[in-house]
């Protein structure tokens, strides 16, 4: 057997039915994760189509308010918690080890657990929706509406537990990503040589660690208010309705940057490849990411301008909300300079990236408007905000994400996506998107509030709503075309080769798709675009075992080789632990004592997960060497 075959056998996931549940390879988990997020993107999109049908005409009776309120709640909750944030984590799961020159992601079993927990959360939410107990108090679940007095039953409990699921997945994912980026980079890939996508994920993961706890805490307090009679949000007993808003938005504002910053990373990777040059101003780009992350924690009150918070405080948040445009503007100007001084290859990935400059910039400008208190007091909670949020999220994250799929699909699958179909899909999406969401700016200014299941005739809103609904179906068509493109390409797309775009980053040095262990000879890096630099020595790493899951750990800043680590083998315990955790979370919606007795299976599963196996310990003994 060749060394390559040995490495493949060591790192691949087991086959068979049971083996499917034991997978821990980051590429396997990554692809499952990406696919699942897109499935739920489509599901949430389908909900939106029903909403748009209801709103196409005034005083419509296609669906009633109860179902509509569940639909808009689940649409928002799914898009924000189960698509936009996790998909970035999923892409990072797949790409980072490859991009950083490592054989594995850090904590592969924990990474698998994070996926399973996410999946179970999705299933719980949609199960609740299909059982007509879907949450219906909005994705932001304001109290007292979502509290025990005004949302009886289990609907808001499902929402609160969905938060618990998705936050666990996100928080554990952020630990995995930080450890991978800081400790598993190829020798020579000092932080100042790291790809901009890796910087984006590093910054995002730190933000996640500090912001997600806020919504975790808030949703826990909501559940205890609803289930065991606490009074966090009950004004009659010393609680405060605005406490919820502060806790939620302290998380909620950074959250949109969890979605946006990784997409900025996609933009940098794609622009560099399709302009045939590195992005202008690497240091400025990195500082812009870091500045955006810090500043995003100082904006949250701009969601609360219509409350009775002190005016001076609100002015501070206006200033911060306007200022955060500057680091993003810096990135945009650097990209424009890159495009202007490069040699452009106008393929589909670049098209999606170019759409960002139109859509996101427009969204950012409507954001500047919303950041100004007097203007916000008119357009807050209207369709103007719906327009803004979709412009920034779809323009700023989804378009780059689709571009990123077109870009990296050849690496995932070994096949190219169809270029002609890609361009058609792009134009459909671009036109459909603007047709759907541009009229909403006008609807908001002309007085239409948001989160309404219908509206009176004669308000002057009919035509714009109709156009918006038409546009939504154009978007749906474009998404369908995307799915067709993906399926056809998987089955009989043109073979891609290792580096079809002749890009400069390390993932393109592997096969397409990469072998199970990524790099037979892990690379040593001497510059920012390793595949574009001339060859230098040392060129690669030897001395890592191929018959054990041995990974090189390097130092956090300079990426000097530090020690070798044995990584865990495939195991069913992450799946079993996730199932036990799901049982714990779901049963505790129904009885608080579940927190006690349902912890026991979780504890047992976790112990089984970590308990060292004799055979594995014996196998790693020969490689053991103390520091």
């Amino acid at each position: 057997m060749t060394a390559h075959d040995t490495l493949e056998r060591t790192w691949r996931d087991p086959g068979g039915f049971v083996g499917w549940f034991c997978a821990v390879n980051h590429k396997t988990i990554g692809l499952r994760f990406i696919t699942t997020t897109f499935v739920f993107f489509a599901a949430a999109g389908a909900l939106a189509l029903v909403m748009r049908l209801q709103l196409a005409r005034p005083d419509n009776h296609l669906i009633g308010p109860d179902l509509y309120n569940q639909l808009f709640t689940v649409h928002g909750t799914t898009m924000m918690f189960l698509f936009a944030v996790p998909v970035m984590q999923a892409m990072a799961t797949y790409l980072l080890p490859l991009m950083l020159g490592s054989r594995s992601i850090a904590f592969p079993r924990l990474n698998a657990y994070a996926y399973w927990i996410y999946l179970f959360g999705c299933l719980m939410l949609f199960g609740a929706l299909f059982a007509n107990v879907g949450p219906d108090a909005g994705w932001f679940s304001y109290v007292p509406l979502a509290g025990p007095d005004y949302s009886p039953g289990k609907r808001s409990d499902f929402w609160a537990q969905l938060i618990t699921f998705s936050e666990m997945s996100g928080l554990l994912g952020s630990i995995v990503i930080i450890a991978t980026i800081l400790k598993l980079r190829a020798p020579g890939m000092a932080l100042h040589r790291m790809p901009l996508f890796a910087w984006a994920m590093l910054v995002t993961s730190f933000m996640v660690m500090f912001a997600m706890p806020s919504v975790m805490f808030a949703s826990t307090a909501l559940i205890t208010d609803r289930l065991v009679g606490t009074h966090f949000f009950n004004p009659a007993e010393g609680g405060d309705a605005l406490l919820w808003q502060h806790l939620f938005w302290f998380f909620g504002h950074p959250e949109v940057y969890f979605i946006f910053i990784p997409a900025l990373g996609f933009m940098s990777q794609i622009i560099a490849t399709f302009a045939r040059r590195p992005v202008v101003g690497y240091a400025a780009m990195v500082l812009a990411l870091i500045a955006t992350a810090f500043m995003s924690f100082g904006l949250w009150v701009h969601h609360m301008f219509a409350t009775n918070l002190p005016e001076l405080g609100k002015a501070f948040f206006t200033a911060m909300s306007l200022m955060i445009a500057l680091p993003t503007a810096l990135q945009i100007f650097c990209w424009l300079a890159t495009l202007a001084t490069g040699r452009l290859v106008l393929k589909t990935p670049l098209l999606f990236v170019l759409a960002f400059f139109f859509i996101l910039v427009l969204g950012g400008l409507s954001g500047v408007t919303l950041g100004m208190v007097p203007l916000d007091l008119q357009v807050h909670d209207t369709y103007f905000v719906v327009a803004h949020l979709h412009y920034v999220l779809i323009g700023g994250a989804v378009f780059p994400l689709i571009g990123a799929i077109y870009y990296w699909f050849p690496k995932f699958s070994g096949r190219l996506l169809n270029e002609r179909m890609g361009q058609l899909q792009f134009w459909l999406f671009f036109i459909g998107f603007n047709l759907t969401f541009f009229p909403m700016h006008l609807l908001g200014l002309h007085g239409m509030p948001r989160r309404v299941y219908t509206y009176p005739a004669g308000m002057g809103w009919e035509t714009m709503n109709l156009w918006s609904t038409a546009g939504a179906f154009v978007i749906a068509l474009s998404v369908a075309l995307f799915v067709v493109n993906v399926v056809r390409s998987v089955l009989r797309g043109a073979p891609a080769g290792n580096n079809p775009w002749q890009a400069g980053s390390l993932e393109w040095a592997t096969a397409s798709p990469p072998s199970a262990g990524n790099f037979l000879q892990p690379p040593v890096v001497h510059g920012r675009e390793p595949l574009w630099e001339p060859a230098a020595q040392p060129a690669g790493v030897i001395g890592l075992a191929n018959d054990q899951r041995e990974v090189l750990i390097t130092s956090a800043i300079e990426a000097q080789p530090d020690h070798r680590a044995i990584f865990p083998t495939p195991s069913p315990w992450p799946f079993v632990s996730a199932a036990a955790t799901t049982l714990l979370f779901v049963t505790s919606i129904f009885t608080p004592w579940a927190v006690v007795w349902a912890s026991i299976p979780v504890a047992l599963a976790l112990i089984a997960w970590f308990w060292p196996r004799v055979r594995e310990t014996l196998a790693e003994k020969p490689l053991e060497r103390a520091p």
Partner: protein
Amino acid sequence: MTWSDETTTAQRERSQQALQTHGGLLDVSALPSFAFSHRSLMWWSTAGLMAIEGAVFALAVVTMLFLRVHAPAWPLSGQLPPELLWGSLNTLVMLSSVIPNHWTKRAAEALDLRGARIGMLLCLGWAAVFLAVRVLEFRALNCRWDDDAYGSIVWMLMALHTTHLVTDFVDSSVLAAVLYRKPLALRRFVDVSENCLYWDFVVLSWLPLYAAVYWLPRMGAS
């Protein structure tokens, strides 16, 4: 082996010297197979958990301060503040647990199996004591979680911290049991060292919570 006097830096320098280059390639086979402190992946995951849980505790304390600012009195409904005795006693027990904890950490970093085993058992003994006193604390809080927002946040802070005490106790028990297994991979010493780091966090994070639960109500409303 007695590397315990070496600093992490010195250990790392020795690692660098173990690197060889031949044939234009970097040979890492002589590098160690585990390392302590921030050189290890376990340290980073522990640090990540500390950041996350620290953020939760900080938010919980800020929530208490927020509710207190809006309250006419604190405690809200004329409850007595929590009894100082058990909470202060437990604070002392927890602080003193740092001693066996650090002793264990040093033993682990010296790859001293017997020392690590004894140390872990001592730590578990201490943990049993502070868990028992914690039960007494709950019974002496002088409020219920469903009294009002004051009772709710006091119980929430206590419950959050107690969850950490319980999970740390379980983690440490499992780890102690692992130390009695044969064969033992030497990298388990890194797990022991990182467990001690997390233990420090659980103890130190108690201090602001203790102040918030036991002393804020004695300062009246703000």
